[in-house]
């Protein structure tokens, strides 16, 4: 399968790899996917007092497109308010990375990961 240049770039130089402390109050964690389906994404956001995402980290088990999708969204969510971040659509991710049809599920997973991380943060601060 031929990958786009952007996928290869994110895959070879993934941005913001790593983990925050899950227990930290300023951190929201989203873990989506399943090993059975061949991809699992963990996305974490660090949120400041104004509700703005200051930093993000990810770890992904999955194909190159899954890794690239999650790497890309860690860049995109930084500086965004929670609701703005949760509004990122998979179609934007797929378009940015020129994902082929068989890899669209990777972008959907990345969208779900953001939503899950935002939700986790909100749950902590109810």
């Amino acid at each position, binding site marked *: 399968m031929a990958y786009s240049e952007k996928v290869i770039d994110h895959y070879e130089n993934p941005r913001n790899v790593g983990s925050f402390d899950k227990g930290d109050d300023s951190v929201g964690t989203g873990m989506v996917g399943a090993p059975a389906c061949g991809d699992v994404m963990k996305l974490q956001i660090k949120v400041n007092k104004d509700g703005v995402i200051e930093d993000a980290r990810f770890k992904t088990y999955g194909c*190159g497109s899954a890794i690239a999708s999650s790497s890309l969204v860690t860049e995109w969510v930084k500086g965004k308010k929670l609701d703005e971040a949760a509004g990122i659509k998979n179609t934007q991710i797929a378009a940015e990375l020129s994902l082929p049809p*068989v890899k669209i599920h990777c972008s959907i997973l990345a969208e779900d990961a953001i939503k899950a991380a935002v939700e986790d943060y909100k749950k902590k601060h109810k």
Partner: protein
Amino acid sequence: MKFPIYLDYSATTPVDPRVAQKMIPFLTEHFGNPASRSHAFGWKAEEAVEEAREHVAALVRCDAKELVWTSGATESINLALKGAAEFYKTKGKHLVTVKTEHKATLDSMRELERRGFEVTYLDVQPNGLIDLNQLESSLRKDTILVSVMFVNNEIGVIQDIPAIGEMCRKRGILFHVDAAQATGKCDIDLQALKADLMSFSAHKTYGPKGVGALFVRRKPRVRLEAQMHGGGHERGFRSGTLASHQIVGMGEAYRLAKLEMAAERESVRAMRDKLLAGMQQMEEVFVNGDLAQRVPHNLNLSFNFVEGESLIMAVKDIAVSSGSACTSASLEPSYVLRALGRSDELAHSSIRFTLGRFTTQEEVEYAVNHLKTKVAKLRDLSPLWEMHKEGIDLSTVQWAAH
């Protein structure tokens, strides 16, 4: 060293230069149609085709008259299964095969099911081998054909062909063996084996693509319904002008295999052992399929917590495959590994390394170091590896399937 390093010999092998040399005159100079009886061009081509047939027969110890040229193992398997099932359908409607067979067998069986046959697909044990008792109990009064592959294309395990042959012959059941991955790797003796039909390919044994053969036993005589109709070539079993240059290539490839097989197997084994030892210096690396009952050319490993496709993308200096080449376009994990009862994670994390005639020690060393670096990098990226390191048992996690 040339990059990428080719470690995918079970997908196909390069044509041995000695084979290519032998083929060329049959494209340009001796181009005659082997079926032309009226002039020297035809005679020359026919002579070469028959000489090649002798070479193939010599490697597998059968009579040259028992071999039918085809376009490859897929066609041989189709002809064997459909041809025998259709010819013997008045005797019975039941066929037996194994879940880890090549798609050529499985899809031919599916087609026969559509035509009204009943097929039993046997499970394999966790090591990839058939349980012979289970096979025996699957045989019925109306079973007409059993088809089992000699060497598995994905995991390289060798089935007990002699025992299965005895079991079938005793009951008057035909036995077909897909030997595409066995020639040049295993000793094949059709005088001793109770196989009635056996499929061969040239391009897995340093011959050209597009040519193969089917062994059809004469004593006891096996009959087939032809699947390709036309000029009545190959005693009516398979019509179509013989691809003389391809056939010459297959003959030469099999002649060389007979001469060099024993020595080659030992050198490949030494390299496979080195590859395995190197890989096992990493944690959570598992061999798929039995290691003893296996051709040394194959090493199928699962790198736990690393997804196969991303690993293949990472190891771009080596040419390997995850699952078999025929199914690697799909997102499904290998059906062969699933049949071994491998967990989804492990089935998704597999790489097949297959070594061959032109593999070198240096290439194997490079492959080991390359894999070590890339697996470490991907594990740093893997949330599953992180959980594993935190002591979480992944099988207890409730995943949301998507």
